[in-house]
């Protein structure tokens, strides 16, 4: 008895964390824009400042969207702002899913979470294509096909999430952090360094960063192989294949 109680308690707790995760997912685009907009303070990028973004989204989520829902009952047909649409199309359905999650027994977290995340992607696509023109008479507008497939995908992902509730299946598999972290860091470094630093420096450095992704790396060996590979690439790509590419750091070239 105690055992089953303990089991259901952990199940409830994991349900809460899943629900919390979906809740964060529901706010992810807003959070992303606000973080992104921090860059405008130091003059990076364009778009709204953080304050404007924060206020826009907060008012849309708290007041704008419910207002729009009730407004539409009143027969008002006015153009909704993109923030309000985001809240309506993307965030609110996911809030609902998050709340439902708390009361469900998830039999296969792998399927359930997979389905919900895909649903988020589909809803996001629906929002992203909401400003496009729909059908004009019998000819397709730019937005018709994305909305069609977006709607289909919402239905399919709901089906997948449903199977996660009804059918027993595998739990979440284990994610490791080391491999993804260093491989991604290496890719990111390469992307940022190739223009200013050139192929030689960025390829060699990226090789070493990627090599850190495995705990079995032997550094002397990695440095030698990395140097050889860099030399090989420096000959292969620009000279043999004729693909133009900066070779050395810009400050050395000037």
């Amino acid at each position: 008895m105690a055992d089953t109680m303990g089991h259901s308690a952990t199940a409830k707790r994991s349900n809460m964390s899943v629900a919390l995760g979906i809740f964060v997912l529901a706010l992810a685009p807003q959070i992303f824009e606000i973080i992104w907009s921090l860059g405008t303070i130091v003059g990076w990028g364009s778009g709204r400042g953080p304050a404007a973004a924060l206020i826009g989204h907060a008012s849309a989520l708290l007041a704008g969207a419910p207002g729009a829902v009730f407004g539409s009952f009143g027969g008002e047909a006015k153009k909704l702002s993109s923030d309000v649409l985001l809240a309506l199309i993307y965030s609110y359905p996911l809030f609902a899913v998050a709340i439902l999650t708390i009361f469900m027994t998830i039999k296969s977290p792998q399927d359930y979470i997979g389905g919900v995340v895909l649903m988020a992607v589909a809803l996001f696509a629906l929002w992203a294509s909401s400003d496009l023109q729909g059908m004009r008479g019998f000819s397709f507008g730019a937005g018709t096909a994305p909305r069609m497939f977006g709607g289909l995908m919402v239905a399919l992902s709901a089906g997948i999430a449903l199977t996660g509730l009804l059918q027993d299946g595998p739990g979440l598999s284990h994610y490791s952090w080391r491999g993804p972290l260093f491989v991604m860091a290496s890719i990111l470094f390469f992307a940022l360094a190739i223009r200013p630093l050139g192929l030689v420096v960025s390829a060699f450095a990226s090789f070493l960063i990627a090599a850190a992704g495995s705990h079995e790396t032997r550094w002397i060996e990695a440095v030698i192989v990395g140097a050889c590979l860099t030399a090989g690439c420096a000959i292969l790509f620009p000279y043999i294949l004729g693909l133009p590419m900066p070779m050395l750091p810009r400050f050395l070239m000037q």
Partner: protein
Amino acid sequence: MDLFANLAHGFVVALSPINLLMCLIGALVGTLVGVLPGIGTIATVAMLLPITFGLPPVGALIMLAGIYYGAQYGGSTTSILVNIPGEATSVVTALDGHQMAKQGRAGPALAIAAIGSFFAGCVATILIAVLGAPLTKLALAFGPAEYFSLMVLGLIFAVVLAKGSVLKAIAMIVLGLLLSMVGSDIETGASRMAFNIPELADGLGFATVAMGVFGFAEIIRNLDHGAELNRDLVQQKITGLMPTKKDLIDSTPAILRGTVLGSILGILPGGGAVIASFAAYTLEKKIAKNPSRFGRGAIEGVAAPESANNAAAQTSFIPLLTLGIPPNAVMALMVGAMTIHGIVPGPQVMQKQPDLVWGMIASMWIGNLMLIIINLPLVGIWVRLLRVPYRLMFPSIVIFCAIGIYSVNNAPVDVILAGVFGLVGYWLIKHDFEPAPLLLGMVLGPLMEENLRRALLISRGDWSVFVTRPLSAVLLAVAAALLVLAVLPTLRAKRDEVFTESEN
């Protein structure tokens, strides 16, 4: 007689020194990729796409084709000798092939795999040549409605033949369709889902997504298990490649069956080499007098899947060359390669680019001949390559991929996007979603949308056009029937059985 004239023309093209060299490079790279576990055909073809910029189109496609069928040969080597399939297509070969190697019969196993592959390759080459022209004629009768229905059928095939849940496979296809819509609309030029990011205005690069989902994601996943794969290499020297007379007698019917099955599954949209090898092995086991021999070193278990995967790898070019529709992810990348060189895949390619089509067909036969030489006498060299540890291989692959993606458009953003799709691919693998249908959806997306819109425009918005035109109606009916069959419990069980073969 036309056929022979065409083939002769093809051989003239394929035997020119530059194309012979390209064919050899393709076969070598393909074998290398096939031998090395941890890097797949799709990632390699995606990686080499930018490299083909500077080459003439015929040479470029000959090389890329060589990689695909070359990998089928190479995959068998590692499966037999090391029990690690270098390619998904050779998973079932490992079951009996490695047992044979353990019994000291690695030589005959390798020889039969190579002979089977060569035979299947020859048959498939002839099949492409024979079927090419009539199918092209059929394709000319296709209007937009038929094209749309055919693509629906192709996608449904991809779902039925994919591993795991049908629902998940359909979801992956639709995700691919959605991803394909990022960027400018073909008709109105409106920017769709691009968020004012200039790099997205042109759409997501297909090679970028492929490299992320198949290249980077695969690397990250391999790192999960630790870089050192368990390699119980068969250490003793391979003695005597020649199979005995009994081996030959046993394996001949298996090779024939494998070739037929592989050729059919290759032509079907959504099929390809992986499913062909699984199906061929299952068939052999089913019809064998003594099924218990399988898994203990039965030579049929090597001969059939190896012939099937090679036949399928080649016949999957048929829909691409005649209809312009890629039946699987590798062929989808070939579409990318063709568009890079300004060739629009479709029925007109056969007439407008006879050099390309017949040169490629002839090169396949030449490539198969090269491969048998590359693989049998040089097997020792390939085995030695396996000693290269993964801890050195994976950073090299990462760098090579990164440089490759960058060079497509000289755009650093593409590299970052590929990285993001690497993470997406990793997540998909963790949630048991198969990425191959996603890629297929992404390639067929623009084609499908265009034909759907055109069909509806011609019919003045009447959706019934898809069922009133006979050809289109038949295609859709087949698609619907397939989908129903796929969810029926009896067939589902059969389908799962085919895929679980490798696990026991």
